[in-house]
């Protein structure tokens, strides 16, 4: 008999951790649902998935899912994930960050992970504000908006997360919104299939801080505005520039096949060992063999 819904609860630490910390109606939980369904579709073992998150409301996500989870320091999730991925190239490493986390304090790690094209799936939950700390402006807060640290108006121009990721060299860049939870799910799935650095920007909202300050209303209102103010890439192509300007453009913005970092490094290992010749055996005692085999055990399931 057909199962209507993936067994999402099997992926949740449902016995202990629910309901979560987020405000009623916060979009972060919706992103979590999309992530889980994407992983479920990929049929990968939970043991082979790591979720590394930063600090912020978004960063709290890692508490709730039954993967290998690590809640790191603010802005540094990608750097932690880079080390983990180097150690475990076969593991699927998801990195969940808020807009501040990914682009303010973490901006450098973001562009460098993209440049290296290391096989991480970076999910930026963009609510255009620092939610956790109470509504200070972030690098994606719209110009003119109010924030607790922009009481007159925000004079800074926002980054385009996706443009930045593309300029820095990410091999896969996509965007959707929490209104488009199914689309988000597909984009995440495709990002995870990509061998290389994949960025999925999930446009969300923070009614509690941004919404209150800017009178953009309840979760229902903000959800509706995501619905109304976004267009698919295909639809956007038909719009005038002026019309496009304030729209959220959804879809896969970049998808290139480029050399992936850990794969390239594997070649370095090969070359180095070949160069070192028969010395290798001697230089690699039992311990190494064990570690190496541990890493090999969980080879990436090709999907």
């Amino acid at each position: 008999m057909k199962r209507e819904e993936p067994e999402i609860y099997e992926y949740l630490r449902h016995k202990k951790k629910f309901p979560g910390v987020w405000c009623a109606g916060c979009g972060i939980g919706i992103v979590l649902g999309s992530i889980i369904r994407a992983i479920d579709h990929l049929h990968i073992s939970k043991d082979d998935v790591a979720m590394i998150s930063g600090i912020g409301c978004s960063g709290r996500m890692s508490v709730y899912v039954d993967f290998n989870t690590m809640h790191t320091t603010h802005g540094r999730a990608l750097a932690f994930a880079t080390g983990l991925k180097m150690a475990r190239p076969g593991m699927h490493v998801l990195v969940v960050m808020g807009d501040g986390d990914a682009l303010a304090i973490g901006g450098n790690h973001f562009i460098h992970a993209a440049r290296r094209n290391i096989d991480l799936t970076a999910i930026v939950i963009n609510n255009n504000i620092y939610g956790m700390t109470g509504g200070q402006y972030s690098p994606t807060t719209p110009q003119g908006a109010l924030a607790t640290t922009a009481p007159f108006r925000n004079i800074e121009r926002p980054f385009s997360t996706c443009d930045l990721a593309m300029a820095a060299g990410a091999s896969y860049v996509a965007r959707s919104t929490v209104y488009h939870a199914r689309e988000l799910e597909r984009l995440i799935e495709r990002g995870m299939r990509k061998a290389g650095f994949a960025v999925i920007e999930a446009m969300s909202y923070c009614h509690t801080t941004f919404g209150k300050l800017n009178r953009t209303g309840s979760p229902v209102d903000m959800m509706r505005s995501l619905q109304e103010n976004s267009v698919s890439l295909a639809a956007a192509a038909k719009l005038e520039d002026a019309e496009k300007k304030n729209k959220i453009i959804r879809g896969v913005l970049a998808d290139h096949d480029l050399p992936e970092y850990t794969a390239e490094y594997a070649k370095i290992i090969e070359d180095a060992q070949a160069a070192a010749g028969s010395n290798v055996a001697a230089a690699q005692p039992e311990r190494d063999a064990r570690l190496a085999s541990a890493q090999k055990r969980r080879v990436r399931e090709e999907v």
Partner: protein
Amino acid sequence: MTVTLMQGNAACVEGALRAGCRFFGGYPITPSSEIAELLSRRLPVVGGRFIQMEDEIASLAAVIGASVGGLKAMTATSGPGFSLMQENLGYAAAAEIPCVIVDVQRGGPSTGLPTAPSQGDVMQARWGTHGDHPIIALCPTSVAETYTLTIEAFNLSEDYRTPVILLMDEVIGHMREAFDPDRYGDIEVVDRMTTDVPPEWYFPYDETRAVPPLVSFGEGFRYHITGLLHDQAGFPTYRQDEIEPWWQRVFAKINDNLDRIFMYDEDGIEDARTIVIAYGSTARSAVHAVQLARRRRYKVGLITLKTIWPFHEALIEELAAGAHRVIVPEMNLGQLALEIERVLGRAKVRRVNRVDGELIAPRQILEAIEVA
């Protein structure tokens, strides 16, 4: 291998490889860069991985990530980079992730004297990150000891699931001495602890164990790691009954094992009127000074500290009990001297300091012995 003339930084690399280090994430900085450079060549040969990160913050982050992934991991830096690592150092201490951080000290503060030696980061190694936290810091005095203490650093980090700082200095890092690794063939290497409990029973912060094992990600144990204060399962908590045992355990694992962690040498302290307590490259000056002093018939003892943090109060108190005077030479304005003064009383302690980028000369210490 047979005898070679080896630099301290190279000995650190040899020690790391011997200890099973299989990951290095770093960012170059004088006078530590040779460690990165050598490992970039050596690690892939043994199937290890090297990555140059975008900065020192990312370097230590990657090291922690790799360690969680199951690789013994380290980074190397100097003062400015060490300052940048402080936040993630605290994370490693709080989340109890084994790793080794090498700080080849150069003249500070700030950019300071980049190519000159110093011991200016001694207190920073203990207190650089915010909040109380356990830490271990070791100081080699020679090229050979850089090799052995690097191995010890990895061993201690695995034994106590904690970041360990190898606090070298420019003199030790760049000095070349005769070195034969074969002489240390029987040195023990501690492997990552494993667990035999099934995943459902596994608590990464099990409060009933002094040092619960850290199972690598990807081994089927699916638990949570956080820099927030956490319960036995690793989940954030504000509950006092969950926080308390964590504090207890995380300090007890160090304090209850001081006899293993606190390494030192002593020489002629039994009947010494004056004792010199030294570490790092200044210990070399101290050895020379003590010999000169003994020729002049001073009763001088020498304690060479290999471990500076944690500081073994009781032991040092006992060792120095008989001495009237304790001399602490340092290439800083008196940092470990503060701790020694605390333990032995200020009256007993004389500091010998130098911060102009030159190694303390034996004569400086000898003079202090003579007036002591």
